[in-house]
Each structure stands twice: as structure tokens, then as C-alpha cells.
């Protein structure tokens, strides 16, 4: 495998399905050795790692001890993590007065807390090299908010603020932190949305597309392309930024 990321290790969380798979494929195509995290092990995760010549890194990112363990394990097997793609997410929708508090905190502690734990765990390796790329997957809802999504929007908006702060804090050390806020992307989540709305998958695609200037929903590969840009070590002047990949629904609003 050749490419400009050759010799670098990329840890992608939530890599068992959806966008995480696309990120892993793209970074591997660009030359990185990929370490694939998911909450639980699966045949899909193992075979993807095998296909891409990478390793698996199973564990719950909301648990700091598990994160320490999985990062140490990855670094022992393939070397220090030079690129972190924090793509994992847990989502639970409910109106604030009707929500389950345990579930609410699970959203925040997984999406926001998990990313924090991961960054702490990969920092020593990046600092030792004086270089690193951290790509945080936020969400359009972290920018706009959404009814019934207080926990999710709070966690994603928190990730944007974390990106801006660490963009400033870590740039002098050559560690570049940026985020991507995807809009509606064709992932397995849409099956959940379709079921909740009691409509077909095609109908939910059409409903979402009607609200997007480009007239369609996005592909996971289009978000992965943004991950590849932000993982590119030849681009060092972009820090603390949020790239919005949403077909034009927010048009640069941050």
C-alpha cells in the first residue's frame, strides 16, 4: 500500500459499521495502518481489519480504563497512534421531560466523554513524535440543535467546543485538532429513523433529501473524504475548524 499516510497508525472508533467503515477504508487506501474500534467484537470488524491489513481495538470508549487498555494494546501491536478519528456515537432520542436520565448521560458520556478519554490516551504518543492529527466527528445537530435531541446535540456541541479549545491548545505542539459536522448521511441509523417514523427507508431518504439544497443525502465516503483531508499531515494551517458536510443545509454556520 502506498500513500501519503504510509507509516502512520490511525485509530478509528465506531468502525464496525456506517461511516466508521468508510473512514477506515479511506485512511487505509491513503497508506495508514488502521486500528478499528467498536463497542463489541464482531465478524464484520474482524474481517474489515483483515481486509485492510489492520488490527481491531474492541472496547467501550465511555470507560476510561477500557480506553487506556485498548490504546496501549494498539500501540504495542502496531505503534503509536498518529491519527485519531473519534467517530463513535450513541444516540437516544426523547423529549427532555420524558427522557431516561441514565440514557441521557450515556449519550453525553459516550460521545463527549469517550472522545476526551481517547485524546488523553493518544496524546503521549503524539507528543513523543511532535505530530498528530485528531479528527472529531461532530454533527449538524451540534450546530443547529434539534427537538428531542438534547443529549445528542449537547454532546456534539460540546465536541465542537472541545475541538476549538484543543485546536488552540495543541497546535503549538504540532498536534492538529479539527472536526467534521456531517448532515444526513446514508448509514444504518436511517433504518432506525424510518422505523420510528413508520415509513419505508426510501421514504425517509426522500424526506431528508427534500430539506437539503443539493437534493440528496450524503454518502459515508463523502465524510471520509473530509477525514482524509484533516488527516493529511501536509495541511497544518487548519486548526480548531469544523467542516460541515451536509449538502448545504447550514452553509458555513458554526
Amino acid at each position, binding site marked *: 500500500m502506498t500513500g*501519503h499516510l504510509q507509516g502512520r497508525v490511525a485509530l478509528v472508533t465506531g468502525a464496525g459499521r456506517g461511516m466508521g467503515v468508510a473512514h477506515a477504508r479511506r485512511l487505509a487506501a491513503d497508506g495508514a495502518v488502521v486500528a478499528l474500534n467498536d463497542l463489541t467484537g464482531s465478524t464484520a470488524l474482524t474481517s474489515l481489519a483483515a481486509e485492510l491489513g489492520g488490527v481491531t481495538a474492541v472496547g467501550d470508549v465511555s470507560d476510561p480504563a477500557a480506553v487506556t487498555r485498548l490504546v496501549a494494546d494498539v500501540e504495542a501491536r502496531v505503534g503509536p497512534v498518529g491519527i485519531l478519528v473519534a467517530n463513535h456515537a450513541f444516540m437516544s432520542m426523547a423529549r427532555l421531560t420524558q427522557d431516561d436520565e441514565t440514557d441521557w448521560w450515556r449519550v453525553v458520556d459516550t460521545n463527549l466523554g469517550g472522545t476526551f478519554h481517547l485524546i488523553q490516551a493518544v496524546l503521549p504518543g503524539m507528543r513523543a513524535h511532535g505530530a498528530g492529527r485528531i479528527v472529531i466527528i461532530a454533527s449538524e445537530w451540534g450546530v443547529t440543535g434539534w427537538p428531542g435531541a438534547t443529549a445528542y446535540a449537547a454532546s456534539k456541541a460540546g465536541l465542537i467546543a472541545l475541538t*476549538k479549545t484543543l*485546536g*488552540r*491548545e495543541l*497546535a*503549538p505542539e504540532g498536534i492538529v485538532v479539527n472536526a467534521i459536522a456531517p*448532515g444526513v448521511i446514508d448509514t444504518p441509523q436511517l433504518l432506525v429513523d424510518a422505523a420510528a417514523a413508520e415509513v419505508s427507508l426510501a421514504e425517509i431518504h426522500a424526506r431528508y433529501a427534500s430539506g437539503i*439544497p*443539493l*437534493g440528496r443525502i*450524503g*454518502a459515508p465516503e*463523502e*465524510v471520509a*473524504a*473530509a477525514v*482524509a*483531508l484533516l488527516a*493529511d499531515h*501536509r*495541511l*497544518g*494551517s*487548519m*486548526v*480548531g*475548524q469544523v*467542516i*460541515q*458536510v*451536509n*449538502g*448545504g443545509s*447550514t*452553509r*458555513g454556520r458554526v
Partner: protein
Amino acid sequence: MTTATPAPVEDPPRKAGAGAGVAVVTGSASGIGAAVAAELAARGWRVGGLDLAASPLCDLSAVVDVTDAAAVAAAVARVGAALGPVAAAVSVAGHYEMAPVGEITVEQWTRMLRVHLGGLRTLSKCVLPGMLERGAGAIVAITSELAVGGGDGDAHYAAAKGAVLGFVRSLAAEVAPAGLRVNAVAPGPTDTPLLAPDSPWRAAAYLQTLPVRRLGSPEEVARCVAWLVEEGTFCVGEVLGPNSGAVI
């Protein structure tokens, strides 16, 4: 003044469905425009360059002032005839000077708006009919972090670059349903001939305030432009900020 020499690009041209075609780049003789032309050429694009000076890196060089709408229209037509249908247009041509707001003359104010906003408007008007007919195309405007954060002594420049953002977001919404994408790149202080050797943006004390601690390079801006043209296929009205952390 020196002309920035773009670094060689080691990537092979991207395979992507984008399929390199013909691009028009304004301000292509030096600085960011020259870097954009070089980056696109390295990726297999044929580039028509419009500038007040000749653009040696371009397949076709047209010496025009972007405030002269008729001359720009003629140059874009020449690019189309010589190189083929224009699939990408990048508005880079710019002009920079600092002045306290009370001292900005009407001439200075008008020139700022005509170069940045007028240059983008004219370029867009020239390439849009063909792009709309083919149902595909990408326009990228270079704006500035000063459009977002403003700056002391930058009222006319920031107003012009802010106007570019409003134009980009509106045109993006207008033509996205037809399959066209309009986006922007807002660099921070960049090492180009637009920054005079004694510019305050080059001062060591200022650079120390930047999270990245250095000026951006034209090549980094060009990488963002090329990404929006080729790979940012779900980006519409988006603004990328390679600004060394000046505006976060």
C-alpha cells in the same frame, strides 16, 4: 516582491469520479492563485489563468483585470474554446491594503469591493451558463479569516471579503438543486506577495499569537481548494479555514 513557487505535489492525480477537466483560476500569476493553478495542474486539470500579469504555470494565460467584466467574459470564452468546457472556477484575484476607517477613500473602498466581490460575481456569471447546462460544476471563492473576525485597519477589506461569504452562501443555495457546488476557503495570513515584507502580519510578535505560530502557505490553501473542487461533493456553501488558528 517575490512570486511564491508552489511545492511539487507528490500525489498521483486522484482517480475519483471527479475526472479532471478544465478550470479557470483568477489571480493565477502569483501567490495563492499560482499555487491553486499548480495544484490543479498536478491533479490533471487543464487550467486557464486570468491575472493582471502573465500566468506561466497555466495552459492558457489571459492578461485581464477582474474588474473589467467584458474582458473577463472574453477570457473565459477563450479558455472554453481552447481547453474545453469549464468544470471548475476559482476566484482568487485579490487586493490588500490597511487603513483606518476614517481615511479610506471612496476610490479605495470601491476598488476593494470591485476586485473581490465584483471579481467573483463576474467569474460566476461567465461560467454558470455552461455549468447549469451540463448540470455539474464547482466554484470556489477565496475569502479571508478577516471576513469572520474583522481586524483593526481592515474595514474595507473585511467588508469586501464578508460580502464574498454572503454571495457564496446565497449562490450555493441557488444552484445546488441544479447539481452545482459553490464553496469558499478563508485563509488566515498567508505567505504571498499580498503581504508586504514589512506587513504587521509577518511580525514575530504577531505570529507568536497564532496557535500554529506561522503564516499559512499558499500550497495549504491550494490543497483546500482542490479538495472542495474534487472531493467535497457534499459540501455546499461551506467555508474551509486554513488560518493558522487566527479565527477559531
